């Protein structure tokens, strides 16, 4: 699902990466939240402890791959996305591999903020608690050139990538703070580290998300809650196929998921995947504005 950073791409060469109109239509006409028929996962016992997680944006890409990985590590999961069919297939696969009910699907549209509180309550009851939330959902609508502006697209990116994340993470942060335990993971992007010519709206949404996560981290660390910001570079997801131009250091989804899982275990704060982006973005962040504003990426 993750649309990558567009870090070094020459964006004025890039066509519209994704035709978003259909997708947006389906966002607007939010269907009734659908829950899969799998039985509620068994309650944890001391000898069979279960960590419980929500993945928002789990139908493919990093979300789906992380769901498989976390299920293997013993998590019971609520998987959320708009596409019910894809979610059901994923749940089937996970539950069959595990030999028990370990994942349940919940059809949900991130931009339908008012649905979040009741759905969250239902999921927490179904899972028997909550230890982890992973926010993966995100959209990217590059304007398609340095001279192109599209407020509607910008707004939608903010609505999904930033406000959608806040709609979920805000109540969950409150619960974790109160419970003095939990882990919050959200997929940002290297694109959020600097405002660039290519995609102001996307940059803003991811920068806003990163700042929001930093603020949550500063609030929650003292309560024993870990907040991990993941900043991927190019990851081979469905959307990358549509990308044109250079996509250096592209990694398979599995590699990104491996990095995320390791960082989760170590309860890290911010990671880049692959890690080389840390150094690239360091250089980019320290590029003085009088140079940066003359560059065309």
């Amino acid at each position: 699902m993750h649309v990558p950073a567009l870090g070094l791409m020459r964006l004025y060469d890039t066509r519209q990466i994704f035709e978003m109109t259909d997708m947006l239509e389906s966002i607007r006409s939010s269907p009734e939240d659908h829950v899969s028929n799998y039985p509620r996962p068994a309650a944890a016992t001391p000898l069979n402890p279960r960590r419980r997680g929500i993945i928002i944006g789990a139908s493919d890409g990093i979300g789906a791959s992380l769901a498989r990985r976390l299920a293997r590590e013993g998590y019971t999961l609520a998987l959320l996305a708009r596409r019910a069919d894809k979610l059901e297939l994923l749940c089937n696969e996970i539950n069959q591999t595990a030999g028990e009910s370990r994942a349940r699907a919940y059809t949900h549209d991130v931009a339908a903020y008012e649905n979040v509180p009741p759905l969250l309550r239902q999921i927490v009851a179904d899972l028997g608690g909550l230890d982890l939330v992973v926010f993966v959902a995100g959209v990217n609508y590059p304007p398609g050139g340095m001279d192109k502006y599209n407020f509607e697209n910008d707004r939608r990116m903010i609505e999904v990538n930033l406000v959608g994340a806040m709609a979920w993470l805000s109540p969950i942060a409150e619960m974790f703070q109160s419970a003095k335990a939990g882990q919050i993971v959200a997929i940002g992007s290297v694109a959020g580290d600097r405002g660039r010519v290519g995609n102001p709206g996307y940059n803003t949404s991811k920068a806003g998300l990163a700042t929001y996560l930093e603020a949550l981290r500063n609030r929650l660390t003292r309560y024993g809650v870990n907040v991990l910001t993941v900043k991927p570079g190019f990851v081979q997801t469905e959307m990358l196929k549509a990308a044109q131009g250079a996509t250096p250091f592209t990694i398979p989804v599995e590699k990104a998921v491996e990095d995320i899982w390791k960082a989760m275990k170590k309860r890290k704060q911010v990671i880049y995947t692959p890690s080389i982006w840390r150094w690239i973005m360091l250089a980019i962040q320290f590029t003085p504005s009088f140079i940066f504003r003359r560059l065309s990426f």
Partner: protein
Amino acid sequence: MPLLLNNFTQLENFGHSLRAPSYRFRLTRIEEICEVFRLAQELGLTVTARGAGRSYNDASLNGGGITLDLSGMNRILEWDPASGVVRCEPGVTLEQLWKCVEPDGWWPPVVSGTMKTTLGGCLAANIHGKNNYQKGPIGEHVLEFSAILPTGESITCTPTINADLFYAMISGLGMLGIFTSITMQMKRIYSGLMSVDAWAVPNLHQHLGDLLEHAPNRDYIVGWLDTIASGKNIGRGQIHAANHLKEGKDSNARETMRLENQSLPTRIFGVFPKSALHYFMSPFTNNLGVWGVNTAKYIASLPKHTFRQSHAAFHFLLDYVPNWELAYGRGGLIQYQSFLPKGTAEEAWREMIGLSQRRSLPSYLGVTKRHRPDKFLLTHGIDGFSLAMDFKVTDRNRSALSKMLKEFDDIVLSAGGRFYFAKNSETSAESARAFLGDETIRKFKELKKRCDPNHVLESDLFRRVFG
């Protein structure tokens, strides 16, 4: 009464081996309980009552649902020193209770090994004491209780009025209704002291033989079992048997019954605070350390002792070292208690203890007691013995321990044994069905349907065993 996200609380079992976050409501009034029942139904959430949280398993946990913390509903409503009848709210602890009645020459007829438990929890699990073979479980001393059902209905039960609910709600794990007031009969005592005999038993055969032989003449009897000893020493340990002093045997009764003479000391040698002792116990909570401690304890127990001890000191062994359960480290502990008939206990426990030693998963504490059957619906009572075994839980031993306890379940069930819902955390629905029987489960579910048609009351334990 709204559901607030900042009520979301990480609750634990007593052994710190299981965590279940839920929305906690701290209530003190009956009307508030009704409000929470209504709220839960509106939101599609389930509710579990929690008292002191002293169950070793998931009896007071309701992951993702609502937990009613009733520990604040702890008033002793009436106490009559002439008749020994006391009426309490459900959050009253055994500590409050004995401290109220003891100076007047009374003692709770049945107490657990800790005084921190609440009466509501004691009734829900229908606890037993070291006198189970004499006095039965705590439920047999309840004269009357009132409870509120999830439907909002308030009921009163005695052994003759609403008798079916009386015998089901006591032992009913809080799944039929919430106790709101409990009336109990206390037991007369004539001294603040008890006469205690302690002697060593060299093997399991004699251990169980002595429990059986001495129980009829004793008010209380309990055994410590060295779970590390193997071979011909398997099941060795020490038995403590105690009698109340009869009227006139304590010339200084008025003095010995004063509360100051009952309280457990908080310091060792008057200097070292016991609350810090568990830190010094941690280095010994491993196979080698426990072997050393048990062997030393057994050797020390060899000479026969006879002494007088205060009630509190004899009964509340688990309160000697505050927070001792923390010595078990990050993974915490679980307890596995099995109740076996007289005839099959020795062979079954020999097999179980042997198995735990061969697997290098020995129990770190073994306690034996003598029991008898009772009339309560979800009873664990049996004409035989119980053996409680504490196991340390670590990240590395979880799966091996889980496998071993499943084998234990098979051994216990084929020996005609039973389990106790305040203790075992891994009992499966199949194991529960095997010892309770289909008829008992049908009856319980029928009452559940009558009292709680919308499935409001559910705990993690209920879902595990009856779900």
